[in-house]
């Protein structure tokens, strides 16, 4: 079975959901959500069972040349599917808030669309993982971004959601413009659109390097926007905070991870030209340093968990960029996998608790340990893993990335990273402090948890510990 069937299945599921939404009438749309979860889950399992890795042959022509199904692509297709699955579960928990802020009289109206869009977006993410041609990259990226334009501003009665949507639209459109502009320059210099072709053309030392670098600069800016690297991170805090929480999770995990895959593929296309390659990595190193400093320092004073997670997502982009600089593929992949589990866990708990307590501020988590020990433990695990404590996946991720940086002798980045880790302990433990030390406001209602959500949380906790203790399976998948 060709991996492209996976994308086709996902798109069909998305359209199916849209159709179902039209004919569902007044029946409970949570059923629809669980159908979507089951569908994505089935596709994920099918992907494991039937899709062998199949890299692009160097002499490939036509479709085969711009659709790569190597191990990296397969890994991130599964990554996108898993992310979407958890985001759909999160959407179910988000349903009450969704209804409140749209049409209180018909609380479930339009919820099917809110489920179908992430699924279609998922197909875009999966396509991005395989894109081996700059045009394909552009198309996939646009599919993802346009879905996000709608999703971010989905709560059209809420001014923060609309503000987030506008910001994302304007900056997203700008970055798209940069991307296309950069691509045309690269095409102009190399005469190629496939990454394989560009790689061969770029190996020619007679190539005009300034022109190529100029084009790459613009592509880099566009990708910097996607992965939230400083100084292209300005949109992140407001958009993350304003968007519906499941969308924020998708934005922070899916969009970022696949942005990194594209970044790695583009940089890798210039590996045959060591001089140019080194220049590109140097540029990324500067971005990494700036991102580490900005993300970690700006996260320190935050007292809204959603906004804190936004800044922490910038900080994690910094660590990930270190892996890009060191050309440490396994470290990057592992870190992203760890990031997926811990960030989604944090957002899932956030969705549940925010719905019950009526807000995202850290103070809403006061005394959570007494109100709901299970959720408190889950968020503790997520925070501890994000901070990078041992026996969690986050630690192994940091270990691999710092090991790569030390091996390559990037001591400036190691130092900045170490400062960042220390800051990280401070702001992640703020959440732990609220949950365990503070006493709860008696006005907070009890928190109800659906069995599906409980199961998902349990799965994420187990995954974080399992990867923290036995990391080898992920590294094997990435080979």
């Amino acid at each position, binding site marked *: 079975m060709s991996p492209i069937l996976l994308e086709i299945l996902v798109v069909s599921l998305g359209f199916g959901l849209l159709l179902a939404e039209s004919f569902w009438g007044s029946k409970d749309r949570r059923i629809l959500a669980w159908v979507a979860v089951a569908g994505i889950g089935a596709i994920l399992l099918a992907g494991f069972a039937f899709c062998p890795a199949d890299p692009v042959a160097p002499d490939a022509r036509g479709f085969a040349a711009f659709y790569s199904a190597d191990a990296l692509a397969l890994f991130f297709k599964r990554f996108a599917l898993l992310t979407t699955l958890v985001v759909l579960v999160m959407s179910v928990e988000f349903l009450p808030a969704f209804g409140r802020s749209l049409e209180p009289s018909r609380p479930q109206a339009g919820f099917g669309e809110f489920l179908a869009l992430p699924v279609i977006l998922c197909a875009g993410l999966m396509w991005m993982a395989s894109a081996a041609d700059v045009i394909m990259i552009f198309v996939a990226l646009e599919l993802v971004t346009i879905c996000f334009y709608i999703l971010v501003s989905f709560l059209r009665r809420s001014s923060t959601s609309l503000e987030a949507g506008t910001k994302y639209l304007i900056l997203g459109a700008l970055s798209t413009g940069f991307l296309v502009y950069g691509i045309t320059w690269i095409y102009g210099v190399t005469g190629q659109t496939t990454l394989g072709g560009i790689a061969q053309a770029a190996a020619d030392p007679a190539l005009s390097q300034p022109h190529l670098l100029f084009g790459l600069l613009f592509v880099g800016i566009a990708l910097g926007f996607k992965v939230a690297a400083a100084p292209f991170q300005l949109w992140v805090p407001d958009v993350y905070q304003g968007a519906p929480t499941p969308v924020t999770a998708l934005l922070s995990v899916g969009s970022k991870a696949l942005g990194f895959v594209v970044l790695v593929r583009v940089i890798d296309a210039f590996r045959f030209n060591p001089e140019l390659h080194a220049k590109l990595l140097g540029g990324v190193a500067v971005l990494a340093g700036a991102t580490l400093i900005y993300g970690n320092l700006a996260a320190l004073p935050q007292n809204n968990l959603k906004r804190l997670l936004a800044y922490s997502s910038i900080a994690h982009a910094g660590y990930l960029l270190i892996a890009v600089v060191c050309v440490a593929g*396994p470290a990057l992949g592992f870190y992203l996998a760890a990031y997926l589990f811990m960030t989604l866990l944090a957002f899932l708990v956030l969705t549940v608790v925010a719905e019950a307590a009526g807000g995202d501020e850290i103070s809403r988590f006061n005394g959570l*340990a007494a109100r709901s020990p299970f959720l408190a433990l889950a968020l*503790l695990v997520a925070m*501890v893993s994000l*901070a990078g*404590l*041992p*026996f969690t996946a986050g*630690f*192994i991720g940091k*270990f691999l990335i*710092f*090991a790569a940086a*030390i*091996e390559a002798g990037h001591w400036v980045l*190691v130092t900045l990273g*170490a400062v960042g*880790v*220390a800051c990280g*302990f*401070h702001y992640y*433990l703020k959440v*732990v*402090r609220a949950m*365990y*030390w503070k006493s709860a406001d008696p006005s907070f209602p009890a928190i109800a948890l659906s069995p599906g959500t409980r199961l998902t949380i349990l799965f994420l906790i187990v995954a974080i510990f399992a990867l923290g*203790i*036995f*990391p*080898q399976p992920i*590294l094997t998948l990435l080979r």
Partner: protein
Amino acid sequence: MNPLNLLILLPLAAVAGILAGAPARRLALAAGAGMVLLALLALVAYDGSMGGYDFLLSIPVLPDWGISYALGADGLSLMMLALTAVVTLCAVAVAPRQVENEKAYFSCLLLIAAGAAGAFASTDLFFFYIFHELALIPTFLLIGMWGTGERQRAAWKITIYLAAGSFVLLVGLLALYFALPPDLRTFDLTRLPEIVAASPIAEGSAKWIALLLILGFGVLISLFPFHTWAPDAYASAPVPAAMLHAGVLKKFGLYGLIRVAVPLVPEGMRVWTDLLLLLLLGNILVLGLATIAQRQLDKMLGYSSVMHMGYAFLGIASLNATGIGGTALLLVAHGLSIALLFALAGEIRQRTGSLDFSDLGGMATCAPFLGLVFGLAAFASVGLPGFANFAAELLIFFGAFGNGAPFAGFNTVQIATVLALWGVVISAVYMLRAYRSVFMGTTAGRCKGVTDLPFGSRWPLVLLVALLLLAGCFPRWILDRVNPSLKALPTLTAQR
């Protein structure tokens, strides 16, 4: 099954049991007793004839990096494991009968114990490191939730400090790993000394690795000026947490210096000897004076535990087997004595509601047993003959005086030793003063009608005193087991 593995899994299993609903206190106590039995069993069964590691076990975890869950123990690690087990048992035993959210409280204590046991039993540097970090969050929760005084500030400080220090340590360990020849890179402590002996680490990198290790471990051991987390945290921590942390966990850093820094980057350590001497004098003299100035027993004990780390550093700075043997002995002796003192402070607070010297006095008349044990503990802490601390400090001073770089007649290590000797006087001053103001003189209002420790609760204190006396009268028994691990250090034997 491997006794070391059981020693780590037992407290973890107890945590699982407690969370599943078993009676927390009783299960924790049983786990502590089991740990002591296992540690004893390992001590007896240990085959020391080779002076190497016994009870080896290895399960590959990250084959790409050659990282395995590898356990093994030699004389030194067995002593540390025994200390961990004994202090865990006593800490659980002196924990209050009535405590809010009992499950979480005892789970946290057992997690700290498991982390310490894991760190001392690991022969893989990676696991050695991460087991120590396992204790971080339980400590944070214990101090923050059940502590006293400015507990939240103290918990915050200790956690951020230790997390940052550990990270520096991690960078140091990774730098060490990458300084090895590419085909021989390993985290395996049983093989590292041979590898380094065959192909020593280049001096340029050894120097910086040693600095990273000194700083990283130094923060964990509260080396001056990175000590500020310790007194506050110990003063605020619930008694069992203070006992476990000051008694056992803090020894991890010194153990690491002996295990990793001294044998693997000796040249690097030599470069920083003078810096280390300066800082350890800060511990002994500056913090010694700060200890005298304390007006509260818990704060004073916190400072004194930091101060005594100066001696331990002196033994390491001596870079010879006598001094380091003394440090190894001090790890055990100080671990027992500081745990005992914190336990006593807890009992006093429970009875009088205060640890301020001005509120206390004359307790010995109504609580003679507490008075007697406190006196013995104070003597041990000062380093009076008959207690293990005396033997340890003596060895450290001998070792340190016998080594060092030449400098105007005396060498720097000798000068530092002469200055450090004053620490003994300092600790006598504050310990005896503390004894006087708590137990002697006119009976203060708070201390009237105080009951002595009930007979059934005496055994943890008696056990600790007995072990201190035993180790003090027969230090040879411990040294005979520890020394082979030190003699195996290639650099130290070359010097003798």
